[in-house]
């Protein structure tokens, strides 16, 4: 690939030099960094010394592509790490050195919590306080959100570098509230502290503790420094503006010992402020580098797109130079009354683009600030109906929403009557449809027969046991058909056998919790295999021995099996994290707690299909605007939906947390006023709009509907700015025709 002169400078810069590279999105910074990596290897730099460090995984794609190409010379693999994985690897490897000073038990391994398992721990602390002492009466918020925010606050403190005991004070000082609001801050603080204590006592590390252990106890050790200095002697750090103060501090102390480094900063970004991204502390790294280079010229935008960006900026009240091209060449818009009409317009335009103009589907993206499942579903159906490949990034979806996972959970409840969770007859019917299959007449369990079977084989009297087929009335048997009977019977008998086996197995010996526990030799150990419930194992067996077999619904249904896989993983993670801890309430098992958590929507299908997005590239992308932005991949055409939405400029408001007040740059004496809010909001909108435009090569399509998705009219600031722009660009006569 041809490089520009400024990109050449990055590639050719000395191998014992630190560079600070800055510029807007689309000016070729990442391309230059990739070229530099290739050049380093070609010059004989050991590839094992090159490390690419990123604030988050979504940015890895361009590096992955380059480093996985056959054109790269052989050698040790160039590692791409996120700051989070660097922290995690360090804590894992050097645990023994940090455990004691950080207040953990050194003789037991660390147990790393995911966001979800951390929320479970938080629930064990928060719930009793709510129920017995009326905590959090003063804030209107669902439980799941409550847990998430307190966990989040701990992360903010760790990443921004202030003591986690200071959270409430900061919030109280800055937020205008009354005494009940102030109480809520104090209560959240108390819960945060209790959470920390519980984690320490059980060797559990949520992300905030990983960061604290890393920054306070490990990064200071010579062994740790030596290890990373060797692995990252030649350092490339991209999108540092999306990084956290903890990452920036780590870099500041790392830089003096590297051979070379390139720190890359997108000058108008910092989109993940709500995850403690800190463009300010990123910018401060500039002074620690030997040389600063700025890229100015966009390699992405056509002149009309650039002009359109300027027009939008002007409409938002920002300064912009006089356009040198006609922005209208880069602008299309559809004005419709109803939302679905607007979606149709989008689908029609995309069909034209792909079929008549030959634009590759992967060069098209559909964006909205929030992407409801209804929009996603409608657009995917429309486009797939036209034969256009389409992909969608779904942040994460609650496990209980997956029909396949729900079917397994129903079976889990049936197989463990001691939990006393009697599934509803509807759930039994749907389970039967899913488990015995639902495609094709006659051969599999359809809704009618499933319902008949559920009504007759699962009457209230049986207390959550399925009745044998032969005990049903002959007429019912005939209606369900004898073809389906054996499959039902096999499934039922498998569960019965499981129940009986567990009833007969010796009661599980209570595991001694924590300290002093010594696992016995594996071969001597041989516990009664099914005595204690391991739900993930239960699912695996049931899946392998029955549900994945011919004649059953998961057989060859890969969406269902994938959902089942996620459930198994999630159940396993949950069990391994908590089985041995006193956090599971007395008399309950981790399995039951897991099912309860899924029911409450606390556990989501986090990893499912994450890869499809990376791999299937030639498909129209439907994504929330920020997701598209932080993936950092320019496209030819963008469709913006829902211009009237508040989501374009509004941060996520949560009553117990605050991205600015709990950040590294906040002065802990100020009040957060409406002026601050306005400024933050304007910046958000401006940066978002400009960030999107800079990732567009040819054309932006604006989809406007008078009535928004929920049927009411929206008039957010972007829509107003858009209206002003159109009024300026089109003479009144033309505007009337629209």
């Amino acid at each position, binding site marked *: 690939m041809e490089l520009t002169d400024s990109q050449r400078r990055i590639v050719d810069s000395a191998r014992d030099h630190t560079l600070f590279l800055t510029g807007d999105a689309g000016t070729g910074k990442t391309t230059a960094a990739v070229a530099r990596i290739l050049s380093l290897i070609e010059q004989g730099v050991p590839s094992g010394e090159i490390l690419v460090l990123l604030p988050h*995984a979504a940015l890895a794609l361009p590096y992955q592509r380059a480093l996985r190409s056959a054109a790269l010379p052989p050698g040790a693999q160039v590692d791409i790490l996120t700051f989070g994985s660097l922290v995690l690897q360090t804590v894992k490897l050097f645990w023994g050195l940090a455990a004691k000073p950080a207040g953990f038990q050194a003789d037991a391994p660390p147990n790393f919590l995911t966001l979800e398992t951390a929320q479970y721990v938080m629930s064990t602390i928060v719930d009793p306080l709510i129920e017995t002492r009326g905590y959090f009466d003063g804030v209107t918020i669902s439980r799941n959100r409550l847990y998430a925010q307190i966990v989040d606050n701990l992360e903010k403190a760790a990443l921004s570098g202030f003591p986690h005991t200071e959270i409430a004070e900061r919030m109280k000082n800055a937020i205008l509230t009354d005494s009940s609001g102030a109480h809520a801050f104090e209560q959240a603080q108390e819960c945060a502290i209790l959470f920390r204590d519980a984690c320490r006592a059980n060797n559990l590390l949520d992300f905030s503790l990983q960061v604290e252990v890393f920054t306070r106890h490990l990064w200071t050790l010579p*062994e740790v420094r030596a290890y990373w200095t060797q692995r990252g002697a030649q350092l490339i750090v991209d999108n540092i503006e999306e990084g956290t103060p903890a990452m920036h501090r780590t870099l500041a102390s790392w830089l003096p010992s590297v051979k070379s480094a390139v720190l890359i900063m997108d000058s108008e970004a910092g989109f993940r402020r709500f995850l403690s991204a800190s463009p300010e502390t990123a910018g401060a790294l500039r002074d620690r580098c030997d040389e600063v280079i700025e890229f100015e010229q966009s390699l992405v935008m056509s002149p009309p797109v650039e002009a359109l960006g300027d027009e939008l900026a002007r409409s938002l009240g920002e300064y912009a130079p006089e356009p040198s091209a006609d922005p209208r060449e880069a602008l299309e818009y559809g004005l419709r009354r109803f939302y679905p009409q607007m979606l149709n317009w989008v689908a029609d335009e995309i069909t034209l683009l792909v079929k008549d103009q030959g634009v590759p589907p992967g060069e098209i993206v559909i964006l909205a600030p929030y992407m409801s499942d209804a929009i996603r579903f409608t657009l995917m159906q429309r486009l797939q109906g036209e034969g256009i490949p389409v992909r969608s990034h779904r942040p994460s979806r609650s496990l209980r929403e997956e029909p396949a996972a729900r079917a397994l959970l129903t079976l889990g409840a049936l197989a463990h009557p001691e939990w006393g969770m009697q599934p509803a007859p509807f759930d039994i019917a749907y389970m039967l449809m899913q488990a015995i299959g639902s495609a094709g007449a006659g051969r599999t369990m359809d809704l009618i027969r499933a319902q008949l079977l559920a009504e007759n084989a699962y009457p209230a009297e049986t207390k959550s046991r399925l009745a044998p087929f032969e005990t049903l009335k002959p007429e019912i048997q005939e209606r369900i058909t004898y073809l389906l009977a054996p499959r039902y019977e096999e499934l039922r008998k498998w569960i019965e056998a499981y129940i009986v086996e567990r009833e007969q197995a010796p009661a599980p010996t209570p595991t001694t919790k924590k300290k002093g526990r010594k696992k016995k030799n594996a071969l001597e150990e041989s516990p009664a295999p099914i005595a204690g419930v391991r739900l993930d194992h239960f699912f695996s067996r049931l899946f392998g021995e029955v549900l994945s077999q011919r004649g059953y619904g998961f057989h060859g249904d890969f969406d269902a099996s994938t959902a089942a896989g996620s459930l198994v993983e999630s159940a396993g993670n949950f069990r391994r994290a908590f089985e041995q801890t006193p956090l599971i309430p007395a008399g309950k098992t981790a399995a039951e707690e897991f099912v309860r958590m899924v029911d409450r929507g606390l556990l989501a299908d986090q990893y499912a299909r994450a890869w499809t997005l990376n791999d299937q590239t030639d498909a129209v992308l439907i994504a929330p605007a920020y997701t598209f932005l932080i993936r950092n991949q320019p496209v030819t055409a963008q469709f913006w939906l829902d211009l009237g939405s508040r989501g374009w400029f509004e941060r996520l408001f949560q009553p117990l947390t605050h991205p600015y007040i709990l950040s590294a740059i906040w002065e802990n004496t100020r009040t957060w006023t409406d002026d601050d809010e306005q400024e933050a909001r304007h910046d958000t909108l401006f940066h978002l709009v400009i960030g999107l435009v800079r990732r567009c090569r040819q054309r932006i399509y604006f989809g406007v509907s008078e009535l928004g998705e929920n049927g009411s009219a929206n008039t957010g600031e972007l829509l107003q700015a858009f209206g002003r722009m159109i009024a300026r660009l089109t003479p009144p006569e033309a505007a009337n025709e629209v």
Partner: protein
Amino acid sequence: MLPESFVYSQTSLQDFADCPALFDLRWRRRIKYPAAESEPLELVEAHMERGALFHQMIHQHTIGVPESVIAESIDDDELAVWWANYLASGLRGVPDKRYAELTLSVPIANRRMVAKIDLLAFEPGREWVILDWKTSLRRPTRANLMARLQTTVYRYALVEAGAALNGGAAIDPAQVKMIYWFANFPDQPEIFTYNAEDHAAAGRMLTHMIADIEQRGDGEFPLTDDVRRCAYCAYRGLHERGTKAGAFDAQELTDEATEMFPDFTLDQIAEVAF
């Protein structure tokens, strides 16, 4: 179609060699099929965890975490035995320049192939030793190990990547050897040497194999004829080759460290629904 960013490894190649259909499902189409692979799962899991821990301890040992600190984390008898065995004989006679958990990445047949080496011990100009820790309950035969693609892929990758590890000079295949060291059989390591002829043959074989995979389309990945394997395969239900998982203690090798647990490159923080 294989994803653009797909990278071959000994695991995926071994899958193809064992059963093309397995390769297709697991790597080409990435189908999750969460059936138990061997039983009893409780023991399998404990064994896997122990194996992973053992690998990590050696990693820690190599990068300078004090032995006393490492030893403190041992909380079960079997692991203690393995650790003692390792300290006593695991590194016997190998050079003292070392890389632990080293991933090599080499181009081949328009793709890349990686080899994640447990420990590379070397003395430039003299000797390059690949050490692989095995914690399986049974000790596989030499013939079995010889036939495993790991033996081929690791030695091949090391020689190919040689220049990048050896200050720009190529590694002489004759200076390479691979040692399988068995935690349960510490005194019976299996050693494979290497030479230029082997290397050329390995290159031909791997190139051919990858080219073969690449040119296959949907429906061109047949099932293995060796039905005994199917008991240990999660997809057996799909192919109507059995219901129950195979017995764990009859299994010769398990990949305790590689690709068992999800690697944490994914962000811990879920994207908030914007």
